[in-house]
């Protein structure tokens, strides 16, 4: 049994009944910004221990339950509004991540505090999609010329859109990883094998289960910073658990799709850490069957760095290695997304912007 009260509470929610008030003080601070409070609230409710928790914890759990219920409604409403906005555009619309989880009513959607909408459309439909969304009020977040160009040339999505009246942001993707990165998921296969879903009478799609898991895994270890990533690891843990329970061939399909999308390495990391930190029941042989796999040096490095970066520390007691681990992994995630020369230029321009803002 892991000694960290947060990991223990996620793995075994009933154990929350044994936490002391001091444990809770630290825990509430650690999970808030990482959006894990909803998962703890749901876990406690399902384990039937909510009633024995401190009164303040019960109040905060009740509030986060309402927030999660609202987010779930909100994601479905946004999906409806997106399809309404795109009703004149000939395009399949694939909902990704949170919106897909909510539309399918998956376990992972319960207690999940994120309300961002992500859609995937064929690349040649981007201009029509962008213009129809713009007509319905989704406008590009103001970016400077460099950021605009960076997004359009190198990223896998339009610059983020924000609705002018509702406080909603949306990312429109044409594949699930940056075009500049070295891993190239098969965008056509993602679209071709997407699964239909009905959104209040309108037809849309979600990724097939294995692709959904691969997307979550790519996001976890390829994208942005790792500091907020325990929640995403929990997503992965719950997605795989639910899919494997309803489909005995799930892990085999996952291994097969990972070859198609060149996602062996991120999937290896994802399930290695999901098993180690959350106890995900990954079948023997699954990790060994992935290809490509990280080499022994990469693996040793990640084994040392990643847990400190993934598991949120107490804001007042950040362990000495955690900040460095996060920085190294941040650089690594950028390195994975861009060719080295482009990366150097990108970081230099970003640094210059930051400096100018500070001086300005």
């Amino acid at each position: 049994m892991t000694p960290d009260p947060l990991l223990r509470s996620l793995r075994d929610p009933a154990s929350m009944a044994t936490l002391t008030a001091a444990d809770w003080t630290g825990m509430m601070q650690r999970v808030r910004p990482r959006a894990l409070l909803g998962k703890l609230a749901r876990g406690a409710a399902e384990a039937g221990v909510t009633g024995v928790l401190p009164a303040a914890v019960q109040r905060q759990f009740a509030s986060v339950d309402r927030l999660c219920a609202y987010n779930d409604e909100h994601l479905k409403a946004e999906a409806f509004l997106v399809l309404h906005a795109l009703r004149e555009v000939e395009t399949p619309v694939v909902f990704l991540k949170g919106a897909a989880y909510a539309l399918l009513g998956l376990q992972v959607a319960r207690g999940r505090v994120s309300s961002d909408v992500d859609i995937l459309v064929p690349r040649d439909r981007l201009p029509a999609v962008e213009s129809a969304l713009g007509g319905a009020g989704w406008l590009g977040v103001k970016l400077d010329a460099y950021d605009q160009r960076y997004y359009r040339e190198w990223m896998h999505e339009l610059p983020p859109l924000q609705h002018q009246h509702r406080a909603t942001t949306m990312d429109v993707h044409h594949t699930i990883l940056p075009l500049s990165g070295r891993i190239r998921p098969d965008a056509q296969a993602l679209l071709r094998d997407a699964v239909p879903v009905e959104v209040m009478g309108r037809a849309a799609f979600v990724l097939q289960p294995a692709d959904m898991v691969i997307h979550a895994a790519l996001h976890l270890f390829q994208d942005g910073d790792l500091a907020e990533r325990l929640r995403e690891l929990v997503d992965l843990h719950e997605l795989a658990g639910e899919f494997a329970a309803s489909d005995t061939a799930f892990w085999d399909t996952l291994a097969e799709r990972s070859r198609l999308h060149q996602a062996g390495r991120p999937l290896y990391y994802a399930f290695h850490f999901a098993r180690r930190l959350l106890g995900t029941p990954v079948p023997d042989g699954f990790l060994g069957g992935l290809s490509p796999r990280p080499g022994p040096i990469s693996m040793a490095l990640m084994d040392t760095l990643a847990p400190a970066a993934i598991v949120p520390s107490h804001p007042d007691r950040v362990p000495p290695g955690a900040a460095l681990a996060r920085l190294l992994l941040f650089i690594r995630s950028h390195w994975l997304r861009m060719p080295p020369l482009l990366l150097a230029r990108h970081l230099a321009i970003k640094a210059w912007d930051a400096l100018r803002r500070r001086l300005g």
Partner: protein
Amino acid sequence: MDPVALSRRLAAGAVLSVPPFAVRLQTPLHVLQRSLHMLYGEFDLLDDGEAPDFVIRVSGTGGLHRFMRRQAMAFIDTPPPYTPLPERMAPIMFEQALNWCVATRTLTHLILHAAVVAKNGRAVIVPGQSGQGKSTLCAALVARGWRHVSDEFALMDPSTLAITAHPRPISLKNRSLEVVAAWAPEMAQSPAYEGTPKGTIGYVRPSRAAVESAPEPVTPVAVVFPRFDPAQAPALDAMGKAAAFIALTACSVNYREFGQAGFDAIGRLVDGNPVLGATYPDTGSAVALLEQVVG
């Protein structure tokens, strides 16, 4: 509680009961420790180990700023949404941080930006953004024996419409400070903090009665939108229900999150109660109008 003991506990982190919440505050700043002793003197300290709803730390800013002008900054567990204020204004930082926590993290209740006051168990909701007179009116009524249910947020149960009390130091700005001091010289006020982004700010200390009655919820019997206008005679006017509905949703901080339950709650609130506009040229006539509403 003895001020020295309180300061010691606050320096290490003390848990304060601010009904209906438990708030853990840690601060090394003497100005805030002293102000807590004054403004929260009637509130209870919980055991230091008690699990809190909110964790707030108010400390001096480090680095170069220190040498130029000593500043205070409030830290919650996420990056705080405001800029630091001079250190002498640390009590304002704390009030702002706690308001932010209540407004953004409480979804057990539908929250309206409103004062709530009650006489003989008959509660009136006085909505308004800051600066529209709700706090002044609240302080004036409390000084005449009304129950101080809440001065900033009405925490309403969306199904029963019952309001959970959340009495806090009543925040007064600029001319309101003199108005309230003249109206009720006996009411304890904090020092006035001059030169804040909103002008001069001071607080009225909540009474023991307000804190002791806090566990009892109240049921509203009227909604009164205050309008101070020195050129007008005192008047109560019935507001259109649709207009009142819109105004109330606009002053709710979490209406959206309640979905249809919020829509139904505000609808039942305006259907079941008179919704009035109170126009008044001075404090005396404002209090008389409110007496008339519950009378």
